[in-house]
C-alpha cells in the first residue's frame, strides 16, 4: 500500500514531556502499526547503584523519577530493611503511607492536567495545575521539598508530623478532594472531553492481563489488582480503602479511575492522620547488609513498582534492578494505539501516564537481522574504547 506514511513521534515532540520515539505507520488518519524505540533517557542508574553504599543509593534511587520519587525510595528501603531484618516503627510506616498518598494525589492532578492539554482543553489544564500547588505546598511543609521529598531513610523516615502540620494537611486534602470531585464531574459531563475519551485507546480486560499492564491502566480495564491491597506494605494492612476499578477499558475509564483514586487517597490520608501511632520514627540500622535476594513491590501512582536487590554482605548492593510501571505498560500501550486515529495518539500515550526516564534500559537492536541483545556498562565501555581506536 503506497498510501501508508511513516510519521515519527518524538524523541522531540510537544506531546511528549520526555524523549521517546514512536514510529507510526499511518494510512490517512488511521494508525496501522507502531514501533516504540526506548532508551533516550538511559542514565545507567542500576550500574551506578552497585558502586555506591546503601545510604548513597537512597539519594540516587530518589532521582529515578521526578514525580514518583517517594514510591521508588519506599520500594528500595523496604527491600534493604527486609534484607537487614529490621522492623520499621509503626509511626514511620504511617508517615510513609501519608507521603505516598500525597504523592499519588500530586501525580494524578499532574496527569489530569496533561490529559487536558493533550486534548486541547487548556482551561482544565490551568485549573488542575493551579490546584496541584496545594499538594506541593503540603509536601514542602512536610518534607522541606516540593518534588524530591527525601522522606525515607533505611529504618524509618526523616521528619515527623507535628499536630500543626497534621491540621494543615487535613485542610489541604479536603480542598483537593472537593476540587477533584468537581473535575470528575466535568470529565464525565463535558461533551468535548467525552467525545475524545470514550471508546478511545481500548484495552480489553483479557489483553490487559496478558500484556501485563499495571496500575490505573489495568484497573480501568476492570481488573482489581493493587499492590496496596494484594500485598500490603507500609501501613496499608491497617487502613481500610477501596480498590477503584472501571470497566470501560478506554481513556474515559482511566480518567475516572484516577479521579476516584485521588478521592480514595484523601480518605486514606485522613484515616492515617487520625490514627497516627505514637513512638519513634526511626531505628538505627547496620550499614552492612547480609547476603540476601529480595523482591520489593510498591504501588506507585503509575502502577506496580518492582525492585530486586541482591546483597553480598558488604555495604554496597551486588545487583539492583528496577522495573518501573511505564515499562510494564508499554506493550499494552502499543495494543491501544493500533487502529486508532492520529489525533488520538497523544491522549492514548498520556493515558498510561508514561514516565520514560524511569524505564529506559540499554538494549541493542541489529536492524539487519532483528537481533536484540543487552550489554553491561563495562562491556560497552570496552567496546567504545576499541571502536574509537579503530577510527
Amino acid at each position, binding site marked *: 500500500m503506497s498510501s501508508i506514511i511513516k510519521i515519527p513521534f518524538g524523541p522531540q515532540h510537544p506531546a511528549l514531556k520526555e524523549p521517546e520515539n514512536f514510529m507510526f505507520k499511518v494510512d490517512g488518519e488511521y494508525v496501522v502499526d507502531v514501533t516504540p524505540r526506548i532508551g533516550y533517557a538511559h542514565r545507567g542508574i542500576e550500574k551506578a547503584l552497585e558502586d555506591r553504599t546503601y545510604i548513597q543509593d537512597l539519594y540516587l534511587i530518589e532521582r529515578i523519577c521526578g514525580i514518583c520519587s517517594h514510591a521508588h525510595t519506599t520500594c528500595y528501603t523496604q527491600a534493604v530493611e527486609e534484607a537487614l531484618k529490621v522492623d520499621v516503627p509503626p509511626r514511620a510506616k504511617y508517615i510513609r503511607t501519608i507521603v505516598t498518598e500525597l504523592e499519588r494525589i500530586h501525580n494524578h492532578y499532574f496527569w489530569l492536567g496533561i490529559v487536558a492539554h493533550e486534548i*486541547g*482543553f487548556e482551561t482544565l489544564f*490551568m485549573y488542575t495545575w493551579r490546584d496541584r500547588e496545594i499538594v506541593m505546598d503540603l509536601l514542602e511543609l512536610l518534607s522541606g521539598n516540593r518534588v524530591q521529598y527525601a522522606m525515607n531513610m533505611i529504618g524509618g523516615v526523616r521528619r515527623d508530623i507535628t499536630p500543626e502540620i497534621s491540621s494543615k494537611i487535613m485542610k489541604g486534602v479536603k480542598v483537593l478532594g472537593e476540587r477533584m470531585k468537581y473535575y470528575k464531574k466535568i470529565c464525565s459531563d463535558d461533551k468535548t472531553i467525552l467525545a*475524545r475519551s470514550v471508546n478511545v485507546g481500548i484495552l480489553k480486560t483479557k489483553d490487559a492481563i496478558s500484556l501485563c499492564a499495571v496500575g490505573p491502566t489495568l484497573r480501568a480495564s476492570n481488573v482489581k489488582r493493587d499492590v496496596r491491597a494484594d500485598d500490603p506494605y507500609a501501613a496499608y494492612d491497617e487502613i481500610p480503602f477501596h480498590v477503584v476499578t472501571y470497566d470501560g477499558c478506554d481513556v474515559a475509564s482511566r480518567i475516572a479511575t484516577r479521579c476516584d483514586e485521588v478521592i480514595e487517597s484523601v480518605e486514606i490520608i485522613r484515616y492515617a492522620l487520625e490514627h497516627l501511632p505514637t513512638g519513634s520514627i526511626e531505628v538505627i540500622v547496620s550499614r552492612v547488609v547480609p547476603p540476601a535476594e529480595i523482591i520489593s513491590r510498591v504501588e506507585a501512582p503509575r502502577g506496580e513498582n518492582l525492585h530486586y536487590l541482591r546483597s553480598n554482605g558488604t555495604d554496597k548492593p551486588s545487583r539492583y534492578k528496577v522495573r518501573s510501571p511505564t515499562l510494564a505498560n508499554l506493550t499494552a500501550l502499543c495494543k491501544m494505539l493500533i487502529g486508532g486515529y*492520529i489525533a488520538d495518539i497523544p491522549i492514548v500515550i498520556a493515558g498510561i501516564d508514561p514516565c520514560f526516564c524511569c524505564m529506559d534500559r540499554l538494549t541493542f537492536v541489529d536492524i539487519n537481522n532483528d537481533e536484540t541483545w543487552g550489554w553491561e556498562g563495562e562491556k560497552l565501555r570496552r567496546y567504545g574504547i576499541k571502536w574509537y581506536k579503530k577510527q
Partner: protein
Amino acid sequence: MVQEAIISLLQIVIFPGFLFLILAAFFYEWVDRKFVARLQNRYGPLHTGPRGLLQPFADFLKLLSKEDIIPYAADKLLFSAVPIFLLSLPLTALFCIPIINSTALISFEGDLILVIFITTIIVISVFIGAWSSTNRFSTVGGMRACLQMLGYEIPMTIAMAGPAIVAKTLSISKIVQWQTTGLWFILTQPLGFIIVTICFLAELQKIPFDIPKAETEVVAGWLTEFSGKKLALLRLAEDLELVLAGSIMASLYLGGPAGFSFMPPFVWFIIKLTVCILILSNLRALFARFRIDQLMRGVWKYLTPLALLQIILVELIPW
C-alpha cells in the same frame, strides 16, 4: 478634487485603513489573550506596556528580527508568497466592512460574496503554504485545514445569506444600513448568529476547532516550518482574521456602526466588535479539541440542517 483624493488616500492608509486595522489586530490579540488568561485563572501578558498591552507588538518585532529559515526542499517562491497572501487577504476583506459610518471604504453590490470568497481563499493559501513547506506535520495540518473548510464553509455561507435575503441586498454596507431602520438581525435570526460564531471558530482555527495546528498532535500543523519574518506576518494575519471575523459578526448581526446618537458610530462599532471577540475568546476557553472526523460529522449532521432551517424561517417570517 485634490482634497477629496487626499482624504480618501488618508482613509485607506491611516483611518480606517491599514494603520488602524493593524493596530486593532494587535489590540484584539491582547484582548483575546488577556481575557482567556483571566478565564483560565492566569495573568496573561503582563510586562510590556500597561497591563501587557504592547506584548503582541513586542512579539511581532521580536519575530521580525529572528532568523528566517526556508527548508531546503520547499517551493521557495510559494513558501515566501504565502505569508503575504495571508496578510493581504483579511485586510482586503476588512475594507468591505463599514467601520466609521454605514458605508465601507469599498462597497458594491455583492461584496458579501467577495468576503465569503476571501475567507475560502485564506484556507486555500494555508494549504498552499503547508504543501510548499514539504514538512510531514505541515502536510497533515494543511490537509486538516482543507477538510475542516469543507465542513464549516457551507453552513457559514448559508447562514450569512439570511441577513442578505431579508435586507434584499448582497452588500454588507447596505445590510448595515437596513439594520439602522429595522431590527438587528441577532434578534430575528439568533440561530444564524450562533452558526456563524461556531463556523468562525473553525475558520480562525481556535479551540475546539484548532485541529489543523493541534500542538500535541502535529506540532504547529501548517505553521511548523515558518519562522522569523514569515511567522511574524502569519501571526499578524491571524490577528487580522480575528478582527475580520468579529467585524463580520458585528456588521451582519449587530448592526455594525449603527447605534444611539450620543456616541459616534465608530465607538459603537468598536464596542460591538469587542463583544464579538469576547464571545469567540470565551468559547475558546470552554472546550476541549474535537477530532477531525467528529467535527465533520457534527457540522454536516447538525450545523448545515440548522442553517437551512434558519433560511426557511427567514422565508416564512416576514421580517
